[in-house]
């Protein structure tokens, strides 16, 4: 395995692993706090039970997220010293702010998890709110750093070196807002749907179980609005890349030729050798309409750049299609659930809705992984778009396949353990036949 590929694979595995825990760390505290607040207001013990169970889950997932995040912060230097040498002074700022946000999150999670009997109810709830806010903030800061790699700003390039560095301008990269919004919504949608899906699965067997009913309500409250808003933020993100990273959009949409009034390809297999997308369902002018809100707009195709500057077109295209399909499904289910709730239908007894929600359990996380695949693979061969090639940033150390395999095995092992622990935790859900009044 070539060293560059090994380094990219190790970074990819590390990110793919960490993102799951990061996403849960953003959204789970919100559910935990809502449950605790409802307990404080209503006095129903089920809510306290829920808050405590979700806190246990958060404890496990946050710890794994914290340590895998540490690995990433070091890997920036272990694998990509060329990138850090160039970019550290420009985008170190959002990482530093993330450091503080993460610090705050860790402090108040400690207070929350271990402070049930040590501090007042108000202070405890406040600690939970602090965890939820700082979790969202740290996610946003990291995404801002990534956005800069896609749309680098805040410096001038002179003889391959960055001069006139302005870290504030770097944080205000045009990609920052659409990316941060899309990712934050994704975190709430994915986690909310995953939790709702698990409880929907139990409700299919036992629709009267008050524990699962209350859990479903809270999880949908967090996940459904985000899932409905997500296509709108996706549209913003797509229009951003249409202007700033046309090749990424061309790869995502498998558009080989630059055209005006470009069609939207649904599905299909991009045949790079023949420069055409086969078996796709084409919607005339669809891409121009989506990317520029103008049916006749000219959309840049892959032919605008030499082939050695193309990303991996099939991987980017398929990931993009997968993300959009799963996101659409979740948005539709969310709208459906909202409609039924508005009509005062008992969601837990609506078997088709419960089936649809249960089916959606893994979808948010798959969509998150697919979305990051589009972002990261779509930027290749650049690590800093248009400025620094990935191959020029990699460490000179040979034998990188060894750390790649080591960390992959470590993460597989941890992933299995975490699944097993959560599975056991979920299986031990209480039997609560009805809502005490």
């Amino acid at each position, binding site marked *: 395995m070539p060293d560059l590929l090994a380094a990219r694979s190790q970074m990819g595995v590390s990110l793919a692993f960490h993102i799951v825990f990061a996403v849960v760390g953003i959204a789970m505290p919100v559910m935990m706090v809502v449950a605790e607040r409802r307990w404080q207001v209503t006095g129903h013990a089920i809510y306290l039970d829920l808050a405590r169970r979700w806190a*246990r889950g958060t*404890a*496990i997932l*946050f*710890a*794994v997220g*914290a*340590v895998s*995040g*540490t*690995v990433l*912060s*070091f890997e*920036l*230097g*272990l*694998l990509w*010293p060329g990138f*850090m*040498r*160039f*970019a*550290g*002074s420009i985008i*170190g*700022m959002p*990482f*530093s*702010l*993330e*450091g*503080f946000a*993460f*610090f*705050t999150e*860790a*402090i*108040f999670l*400690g*207070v929350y*998890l*271990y*402070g049930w009997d*040590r*501090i007042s109810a108000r202070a405890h709830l406040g600690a939970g709110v602090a965890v939820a806010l700082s979790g969202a903030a740290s996610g946003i800061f990291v995404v801002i750093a990534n956005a800069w790699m896609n749309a680098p700003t805040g410096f001038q390039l002179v003889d391959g070196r960055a*001069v006139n*560095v302005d*870290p504030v301008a770097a944080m205000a990269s045009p990609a920052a807002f659409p990316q941060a919004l899309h990712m934050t919504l994704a975190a709430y949608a994915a986690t909310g749907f995953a939790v709702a899906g698990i409880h929907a699965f139990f409700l299919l067997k036992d629709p009267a179980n008050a524990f699962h009913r209350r859990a479903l309500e809270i999880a949908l409250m967090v996940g459904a609005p985000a899932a409905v808003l997500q296509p709108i933020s996706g549209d913003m993100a797509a229009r951003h890349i249409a202007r700033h990273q046309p090749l990424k959009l061309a790869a995502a949409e498998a558009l080989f030729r630059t055209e005006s009034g470009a069609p939207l390809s649904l599905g299909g297999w991009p045949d790079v050798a023949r420069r055409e997308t086969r078996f796709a369902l084409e919607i005339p002018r669809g891409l121009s309409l989506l990317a520029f809100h103008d049916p006749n707009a000219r959309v840049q195709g892959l032919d605008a750049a030499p082939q050695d500057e193309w990303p991996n077109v099939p991987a980017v295209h398929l990931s993009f299609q997968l993300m959009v399909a799963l996101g659409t499904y979740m948005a539709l289910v969310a709208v459906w659930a909202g409609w039924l709730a508005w009509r005062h239908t008992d969601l837990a007894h609506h078997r088709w809705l419960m089936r649809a929600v249960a089916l959606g359990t893994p979808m948010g996380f798959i969509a998150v992984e697919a979305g990051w695949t589009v972002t990261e693979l779509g930027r290749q061969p650049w690590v800093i778009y248009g400025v620094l090639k990935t191959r020029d940033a990699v*460490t000179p*150390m040979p*034998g990188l396949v060894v*750390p790649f395999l*080591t*960390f992959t095995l*470590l993460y597989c092992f*941890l992933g299995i*353990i975490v699944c097993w*622990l959560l599975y*056991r*935790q979920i299986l031990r859900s209480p039997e609560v036949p009805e809502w005490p009044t």
Partner: protein
Amino acid sequence: MSLADVLAGIIFVALNAYTLLGGADFGGGVWDLFATGPRKQRQRDLVADAIGPVWEANHVWLILAVVLLFTCFPPAFARLGTLLHIPLSLVLIGIVLRGSAFTFWRYGGTEDKELRHWGVTFAIASLITPLLLGTTVGAIASGALGEGGSGKGEGFYSIYVGPWLNPFTLSVGVFALVAFAFLAAVYLTLEAEDRELRADFRARALGTGVALFGAAALALLLSARYAPRVRDGLIFAGWAVPLHAFTAVAAITALAALWRGAWRVARVVAAIQVSLILWGWGLSQYPYLLPPDVTIADAAAPAATLRLALGALALGAAVLLPSLAYLFRVFKNRPAARA
């Protein structure tokens, strides 16, 4: 003193905090591994209760030091990442296993015997990680990582292994391990709620306190050959004599306080002792970030970045310090039981 010096100092403060807090959490893991006697289980429970609420926050000092290092001194971070790839990767594996095993053990949710496997994993990772962290410090101090450092030789071994794997770096690793175990034992005397358990950790603190002298002497002895600059600084610089005097006073006071059962005094003095040793290292290689030739000024980011980093630090500290104070007030402010 330049802006870059100030930021290098702040990074060193973060490392100091990591040593005193995160280091002690590793030390707790060591005492889990070496739990013995009739109160074995209670020793382990005390360790777990002590580090449970705080280890994640304590761990973030390291992350903070790393992100500040790559923001303010990017070329130094790039060199460290390249030349210390192997030990830092191993440290990361240790950190991952330590943290996740601890959480699986405490939050796994059943009282199964299988959970003890996680306890063992946690303990072993707590033993190995400080050793490796110490070797990376030794590699920096020995001057192997600068542009003209000894890590410039030919071949994989002399570039990527030799700089951090020699008698001196290993002695620094041992020193770090003993120091972490010492700090943990001292802190635990204060956290233990009964006399017998406290006596267990008092004995451990006294033992490691004495061992710390041995480890320091060994490292100093080996530095003559492997890290002459640091050795010269530690012996001949103007600040050297007062620093050593203070360190010696702190060390002896710590042992005396442990002996007499003045647990709070022992905690403060032990922390001062370890901090002074750390600052001795830092001062001895000033103004070099990576001896023998990469100075703080050479590696510094542009002034715009440094100014902003300082601003962010001020802002962050305004949120962080009260939060930390709150965390420790909630969990570490139990009334000390009498000796």
